[in-house]
């Protein structure tokens, strides 16, 4: 299971990376926004994307749209982990095809639950 973590704050990437490692996902890679993340997704075999929303350059929602518009990436599970908590934003992310949405600050337990739920739905 190869996971890409996209967030403009290196500390947040590191936190998510450590939490994922605790959950047994050791194969992670990082990018600091959509502009650097999208080429990685297109060239590597990633199984899962965890992305922030508010980033300079290409935002998370733009990255999500780009992923869904890409023939080879369109079924990639995407989990959004963001501080944006407005109803219209969550609805927008859902409409753009996000698989899970976590608002910061979040707990390790929440991350675990959402990831498990996403895979349950994909496998089920």
């Amino acid at each position: 299971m190869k996971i890409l973590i996209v967030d403009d704050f290196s500390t947040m990437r590191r936190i998510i990376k450590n939490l994922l490692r605790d959950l047994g996902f050791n194969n992670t890679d990082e990018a600091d926004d959509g502009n650097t993340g999208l080429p990685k997704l297109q060239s590597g075999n990633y199984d899962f994307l965890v992305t922030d929303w508010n980033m300079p350059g290409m935002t998370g929602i733009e990255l999500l749209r780009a992923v869904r518009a890409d023939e080879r990436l369109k079924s990639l599970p995407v989990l959004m982990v963001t501080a944006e908590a407005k109803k219209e934003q969550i609805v927008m992310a859902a409409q753009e095809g996000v698989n899970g949405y976590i608002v910061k600050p979040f707990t390790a337990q929440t991350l675990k639950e959402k990831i498990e739920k996403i895979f349950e739905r994909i496998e089920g």
Partner: protein
Amino acid sequence: MDGTPLNRDLLLENAQALIASLESPETSDQELEAQIDVINNLRDNSLFNELGKMTREIHDSIMRFRMDNRIADLAETDIPDAKDRLEYVIEMTEKAANTAMGVIEGSTPLAEKLGGQASELKAQWEKFRRRELSPEELRAMGNDVETFLDESERMTNTLLSGFTEILMAQDFQDLTGQIIRQVINLVNEIEHNLVELVKIQGKSMVKEDKQKPASDEMKLDGPQVPGKETSDDVMKGQDDVDDLLASLGF
């Protein structure tokens, strides 16, 4: 108008002189006009006095505002200084986060190793209790126990020094708290000065600018701050988000 009162005595004197002039057939029109002008001027003077007073007040306010070096300092020194300080807050919090995560990343394999060794020893110990160990295996277990105890001691010391490192890294909270408080004070001062400026400009300006800018649908608000007034369309936490997504069929 309510302002400088008219000089009634002077007005009466002039009015009586005008009546006297009117009653006298010898007075020329020019003389009458001159007398009416005098009376007119009496009224105009009080208007001018009032206008003069207002002009002086406005002038004084503007001058006071311009002479106040504090405002120049705010713009030239304090605001750039506050930006530097806030940058420093980011720097310090980032450093603390990295210190803590560095210790955790370094310690986790140690703790895992220790746990793993304990499990192995436990299995051997259970075999021993069930008398399934050969004398050779027993000797090996003795060695393993010795190694394990040594390593436990060493690793515990490493972990404890890591805890101290994490503890010490929390000093950023005190320092960043002080810096942020200074910046809050600065913002208060700027607010106060802006209010003064608005007062000089006059109340009409305030009304005109009340209109809010058109709301931007994609404006990103960032983290919700506890205790801040938020509208109903902002989720209070993960539970709200989950409920909303559930209602959308997630």
